């Protein structure tokens, strides 16, 4: 189901969106009693999980050979 790292995605998604909310707070964009401060970190968990599910970074190419497939057996040339 997850091509990437689900736990890392959830944790870092939570933290990333939490700090985005804090940035908005500290730069005076939203007030201290804004619901965004609690909603954004929860959104971050969902985004992090979705990001880990898609895992677009470092994905194996669809046209190249898979690293899991063993190379063809060596056959010596005919004498």
């Amino acid at each position, binding site marked *: 189901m997850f*091509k990437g790292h689900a736990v890392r*995605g959830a944790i870092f998604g939570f*933290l990333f969106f939490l700090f985005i909310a804090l940035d908005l707070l500290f*730069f005076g964009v939203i007030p*201290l*009693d804004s619901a965004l401060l609690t909603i954004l970190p929860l959104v971050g968990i969902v985004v992090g999980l979705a990001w*880990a599910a898609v895992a677009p970074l470092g994905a194996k190419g669809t046209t190249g050979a898979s690293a899991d497939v063993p190379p063809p057996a060596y056959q010596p040339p005919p004498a």
Partner: protein
Amino acid sequence: MVRRAVLGFAVVCAAIAFVPAAAGAAPTVINGPCEGSGAFQKGGFTVNATETGTVEVPRTDDVSWTGSITGVTGDNAYSGSIEVELPPPFGSMSIDSWSGTTDATSNSGVKHYDIPGAVPANVEFTVKGSHSQGTASCSGHVTAKIKGSSVNAFSVGSVALTLLTGLGLLFAGRAKGGI
């Protein structure tokens, strides 16, 4: 005790009165038969409970405050509180509360305050207060912020941690076993 009672509602009135000249911000709201005003000595401005806007207060100052309540006579029980509203679901944080019996209906004084440096500047917060005395009851709220630059240790640290955790999130999107 009487002084504390009147001080209580005067603090509510004064807190409600911490209003700005700034436009476009949330209005100050006061409900009930209370009046109040506060003169910030370092800030060089005076506010009262009928103005609207966001209060920009210095980190430290002396405030000459006055407060009064109408519609009550004789000895009455009183109670009240001041709270700072937090984001849901955390509710609010109590700053002070009071209760007792008094026959006073007005008071004034000078209050020195010094907000710790750990409280970031330029962050809007809502202070709400209430005071009940006899049959009279007042409540109100005001939006306030500490005067100062948004660029401080809190905001810089938060931006740095945003970048770091963003990097962590980026790497969580690497396919397992991928390059």
